[in-house]
């Protein structure tokens, strides 16, 4: 026989934890972690990275380059549904970040949108659904929605003055208001949402996704990470000026000044996965009614929540 002694697994084997977040609001809450690099114990090394595109994060989760990532909530559901539950939701980290931006003076309330032309980025995206949901509930029908590909192109039109009314997410809202002084926030979509659904309702837009295989192998790492992450978010919300400096340092936003303006309007939160189920179920249902594909076909079940 050619049996060969298999070396017993050495205790001291290194565990690499790869954590990624996105540029923009979902990443802002993580700066304290990025800065401190808290110790997760011996032989555990946590690598942080900042990515630009949600799609890319998705790919990197799929190819196992990343274990823990901050993602849009609908993407979390898609990943869960499409991989027979290989990915789980760790926590909700961002509520809504949508605003109506304008250079006009005649837009004060949602009803003023009647008979107007508004720019919205990416038809069929989550912001589009939420916006349409709100318009429906307010019976606003005479509105001309102009779809523009990508937030950036819409932002360019606002900055150059070629467009005077648009729906945008953070940090583009802050960016355009900084680059063109005529622009201001006319409406907070989150507020409009609460006006319809009740004051305790929120739009959960961003969350933490964990690779299930990783979570099963290293539960204590995940536990500790979530705790540290919660602290980081809290710190960011409370120490805007310092956090902004870090945000610039880690290139999550191009400038600290922008971050200072963006943080308060980005609704950073930490909601435990178990506590978020109710909120997410309702949110997913809303999306499902628009397009089931946008959450991967069905509302994720119990085991989606870590």
């Amino acid at each position, binding site marked *: 026989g050619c049996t060969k002694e298999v070396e017993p697994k050495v205790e001291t084997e290194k565990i690499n934890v790869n954590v990624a977040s996105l540029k923009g609001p979902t990443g802002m809450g993580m700066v304290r972690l990025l800065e401190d690099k808290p110790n997760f114990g011996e032989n555990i090394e946590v690598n942080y990275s900042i990515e630009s595109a949600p*799609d890319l994060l*998705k790919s990197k989760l*799929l190819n196992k380059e990343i274990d823990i990532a901050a993602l849009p909530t609908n*993407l979390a559901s*898609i*990943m869960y549904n*499409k*991989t027979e539950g290989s990915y789980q939701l760790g926590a909700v980290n961002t509520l809504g970040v949508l605003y109506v931006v304008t250079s006009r003076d005649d837009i004060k309330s949602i009803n003023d949108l009647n008979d107007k032309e508004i720019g919205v980025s*990416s*038809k*069929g995206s989550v912001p589009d659904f939420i916006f349409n949901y709100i318009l429906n509930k307010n019976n606003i029908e005479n509105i001309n929605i102009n779809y523009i*590909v*990508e937030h*950036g*192109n819409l932002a*360019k*039109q606002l900055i150059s003055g070629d467009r005077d009314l648009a729906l945008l997410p953070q940090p583009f809202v802050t960016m355009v208001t900084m680059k063109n002084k005529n622009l201001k926030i006319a409406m907070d979509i989150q507020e409009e949402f609460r006006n319809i659904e009740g004051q305790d309702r929120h739009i959960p837009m961003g969350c933490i996704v964990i690779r299930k295989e990783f979570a099963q192998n290293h539960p204590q790492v995940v536990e500790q990470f979530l705790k540290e992450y919660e602290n980081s978010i809290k710190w960011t919300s409370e120490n805007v000026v310092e956090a902004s400096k870090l945000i610039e340092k880690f290139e999550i936003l191009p400038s600290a000044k922008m971050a200072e303006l963006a943080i308060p309007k980005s609704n950073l939160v930490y909601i435990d996965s178990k506590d978020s189920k109710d909120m997410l179920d309702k949110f997913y249902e809303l999306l499902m009614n628009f397009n089931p*594909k*946008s959450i*991967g076909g069905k509302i994720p079940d119990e085991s989606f929540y870590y």
Partner: protein
Amino acid sequence: MRASTIKLKKIIYILFWIILWQIIAVGLNREVYLPTPINTIKALFNIVQTKGFFMSIFYTLLRVFTGFLISFILGIIIGLFSSFNRHIYDLLNPLVISIKSTPVISIIIIFLSWFKSGIVPIIITFLMCFPIIWTNVVEGVKSTDKSLVDMAKVYKVSKYNILKHIYLPSILPYIVSGSLTTLGLGWKVAVAAEVLSQPNYSIGAHLYDSKIYLETESLFAWTLVVIILSFIFEYFFKYIIKLKMKGRI
């Protein structure tokens, strides 16, 4: 070997690759990463039945052909002028080289902020195809047998006839190979531009949807649609060329 045997052999070779794909996909057993050919075909059937299917294909084709046709005609005409006039060549050459070396993705990003999303794929196709056809025409003229041109000059054959009977047939293979490259490339670039610009009816928008919704089967199925259409084009184009070239070689 009879024609039917050759066909059979070709089919066997193609089957070889499909079976290889099936084996790998089954072995991997992860539909999000690599769907089996069978599931891809299933997804293809689903796609074909959706109501926007033919419209999407039609509009994508329209964009590709518009871009291609403009490049084809301008490429040949301007290419000929550049070949016979040093100044025009020197003026255009840096522009063509620059266009050639500009990453498509930059062009798409820039143009998306300039133009309507339906037009961007056409412009991109043009910018991809024109330099190739232009270069091939210039190359073709260069490679024309000078001794035949000399012969024609001695016999005082008119410029028009020299162009028609010596230069054009000489550059024809270059134009054909340029057009083939170009058709394949333009087609792919147009789809890429669509993915990024997502005009209403377009194959690209469907690819984009498949991507963001992680529907790998339909990503594969739409990709297959592109490949199949590519094959049909190439076949069609070669067929036309063969008809036109009868008598020439």
